[in-house]
């Protein structure tokens, strides 16, 4: 095993799922003691590739070499033995177990647990010191914040003596500060001689931490580069295959009258947990208000209440001066009628019926409209015509109004929902996670559409966990933490650090901040 050999090398790896060629002739070489980024849009094949390395799938053809030695990886077990550790996007942890139990799962060291637990405890204390990864090994994982859970995953890999650590979209659930902390940990790992592979679609992270970067597009490896010799824009262009605007240009907002105003809005859920605590918000015509925050801090509940899917416990919502709470208009259906459109956060659960065709999905919620009905029957021709205009205008692919919603990609599904809600031209549009699971090219399009709507004098509320997105399109940004609005800043004043602190629950004092 010479020092010149790369830690991990892939040669001509191919993998198909039925007719989908997920990985086409992929070759990749990752140097030891480096951080190697792999970027690509959703569905570019990054995760499939790493699943092959981790033994979840077998490649149809191609070779995997570890330290220059060809390696047969048939299952996660053989991958672990080859020194590969993986931190999955969705943590592979048992919430009811302690940290210690989670870490030894699979390598308990004998049929009886007590000996293995004692040995693991010592080893973990050593590992925690070596990599400065403090975590209480006796804590129940379900009680830990996500940042710490991720640390447990890293420890789990290190405990298995991983030399190569693969992280799949590790920052999706973290605040910017937590992400920075993660990068410091990765830096320590690199210094200690470990090799890190970082899979992400966030270019900021690639630029911040990696040594080398590989770009994937539509199942192919399109470029390898030294991070220091490339730029964000160049990478984005390689990812999409054409030049894209990462930040959509927009003119300053011209806010008009207040359309929607919330006062003391409170929501306590069925388990008696307060999810929203006295929320005050105003939304004006001609502006985009962004709600930032780490997911699970009440944004979903807020959106679902405004969309009429939940009833608030107390407080008031006034729309054009009219009180909605307790009124007849307060239902998902009637709110749409009076001009409040809603693009739900979770398009699979609330935005579409996956087993419906595109032309059916594009009338959901508006299916009573006379233009889609002929007597008691739905007017299928009108529905299809309607859907085809959306397909044309929003460039939905494939352009087939009869295709099932489930057969569209995430980005195109989102466009179906957006088209449906935007084309009814509501006065207020609520949008949850406008670009979740949507690739860069489509993100640009969606952002442009939202800004166009704003310029047409509509009020838009955007809830997003992507801080970049909020900063790029919103005119005003409110940050939610633990069911409260911890602060509000205008887009010009917003910085990542400032928002990040608020996302972690730090309130800004009234004195001017020391930046």
């Amino acid at each position, binding site marked *: 095993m010479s020092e010149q050999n790369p830690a991990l090398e892939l040669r001509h790896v191919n993998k198909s*799922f039925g007719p989908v060629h997920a990985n086409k002739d992929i070759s990749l070489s990752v140097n030891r003691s480096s951080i190697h980024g792999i970027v690509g849009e959703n569905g570019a094949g990054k995760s*499939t590739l790493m699943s092959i390395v*981790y033994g*979840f799938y077998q490649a149809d053809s191609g070779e995997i070499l570890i330290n220059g030695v060809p390696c047969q990886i048939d*299952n*996660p*077990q053989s991958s*672990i033995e080859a020194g590969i550790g*993986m931190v*999955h996007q*969705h943590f*592979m*942890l*048992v*919430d*009811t*177990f302690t940290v210690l*139990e*989670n870490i*030894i*799962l*699979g*390598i*308990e060291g*004998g*049929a*009886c*647990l*007590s000996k*293995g637990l004692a040995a693991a405890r010592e080893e973990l204390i050593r590992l925690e010191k070596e990599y400065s990864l403090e975590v209480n090994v006796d804590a129940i994982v379900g009680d830990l914040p996500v940042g710490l859970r991720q640390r447990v995953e890293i420890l789990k890999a290190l405990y298995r003596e991983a030399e190569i650590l693969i992280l799949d979209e590790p920052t999706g659930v973290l605040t910017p500060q937590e992400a920075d902390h993660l990068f410091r940990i990765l830096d320590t790992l690199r210094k200690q001689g470990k090799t890190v592979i970082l899979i992400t679609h966030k270019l900021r992270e690639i630029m911040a931490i990696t040594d080398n970067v590989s770009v994937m597009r539509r199942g192919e490896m399109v470029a390898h580069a030294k991070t220091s010799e490339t730029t964000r824009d160049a990478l984005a262009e390689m990812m999409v295959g054409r030049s894209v605007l990462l930040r959509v240009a927009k003119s300053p907002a011209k806010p008009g009258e207040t359309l929607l105003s919330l006062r003391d809005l409170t929501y306590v859920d069925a388990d008696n947990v307060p999810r929203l605590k006295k929320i005050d918000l105003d939304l004006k015509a001609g502006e985009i208000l962004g709600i930032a925050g780490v997911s699970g801090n009440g944004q979903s509940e807020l959106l679902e209440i405004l969309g009429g899917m939940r009833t608030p416990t107390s407080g008031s919502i006034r729309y054009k001066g009219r009180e909605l709470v307790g009124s007849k208009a307060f239902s998902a259906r009637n709110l749409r009628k009076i001009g409040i459109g809603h693009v739900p956060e979770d398009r699979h659960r609330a935005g579409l019926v996956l087993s419906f065709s595109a032309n059916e999905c594009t009338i959901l919620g508006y299916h009573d409209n006379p233009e889609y009905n002929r007597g008691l029957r739905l007017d299928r021709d009108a529905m299809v015509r309607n859907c085809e205009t959306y397909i044309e205008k929003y460039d939905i692919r494939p352009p087939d109004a009869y295709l099932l919603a489930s057969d569209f990609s995430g980005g195109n599904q989102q466009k179906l929902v957006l088209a449906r809600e935007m084309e009814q031209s509501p006065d207020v549009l609520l949008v949850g996670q406008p670009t979740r699971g949507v690739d860069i090219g489509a993100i640009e399009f969606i952002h442009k559409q939202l800004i166009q709507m704003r310029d047409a004098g509509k009020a838009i509320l955007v809830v997003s966990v992507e801080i970049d997105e909020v900063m790029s399109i919103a005119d005003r940004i409110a940050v939610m933490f633990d069911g409260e609005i911890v602060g509000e800043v205008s887009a010009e004043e917003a910085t990542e650090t400032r928002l990040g602190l608020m996302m972690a629950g730090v309130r800004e004092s009234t004195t001017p901040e020391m930046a």
Partner: protein
Amino acid sequence: METFHIIILLMDATFRVATPLVLAALAGMFSERAGIVDIGLEGKMLGAAFAAAAVASVSGSAWVGLGAGIMASLALSALHAYACVTHKGNQVVSGMAINIVVAGLAPTLAYAWFQMGGQTPSLGGDARFRSIDLPFSDAAREIPVFGYIYADLISGHNILVYLAAAAVPICAWILYKSRFGLRIRAVGENPHAVDTAGISVDLLRYKALAVTGFLCGISGAYLSTAHGAGFIRDMTAGKGYLALAALIFGKWRPVPTLFACLLFAFTDAVQIRLQGVELPIVGVIPVQFIQALPYILTVLLLAGFVGKAHPPKAIGTPYIKER
């Protein structure tokens, strides 16, 4: 002294009734902790009861009968695993199917083999588990209270009752202190975590269901070769469901489940005791009402008094690798 005597008799009956419940509930615990709903406990018990009685009557040995009961229950459990683990079938449907098939098949086979109207011949002698007297029980009876408890309550049960008593700490140890138990608990909470740790989810669930089959087999054999003396149609009479209720009431934990079983068994013992007895003020309570008591209690307990039970998170959902 009279009251004391009645209490001892009630407790004695409680233990006898609780034994199959405890064994079946522990059986269910392994299955459900591994993420497989086991509504088929009832069918497995009934199948084991039939197989044990049939084989015991032919071979003349209760132990051979017990073995047959376990084999029958294991086979049904394997069927459940094949449907739910290998083919990702609906676990409730599979369990229900087992219950229905056994409820029909056992009396039919009994009719075909023994021509006794769907029963097996009455068992006697070595074909049945007999009560065993623990050492010094006669001598101990002379000692007041403790000796009496030892001689008349602790001593004098058949071996399977003691086995059930021992099964609780053994199962608790396995679940909480062994590698197998850790993996069982993990696979019921998050099978993806188990898979990525390099352990086969399917194999693990098969193993868990094998333990379920084994314990359920003993439970069924107890009904027909220890508690009763032969198989009769529908002899489980909902005990499998009651065991499942006890498991949920016990929040899927061995010791609380034991107490739940004892509580259900105690109400059953009281129920038998109360039949036809004139109570102060209320008078004689209709026998139907008294017989319904354990079930009413079950519903009440499950409906409100348990507090929030957190079932294993992955229960009921077949494991499918994500793409």
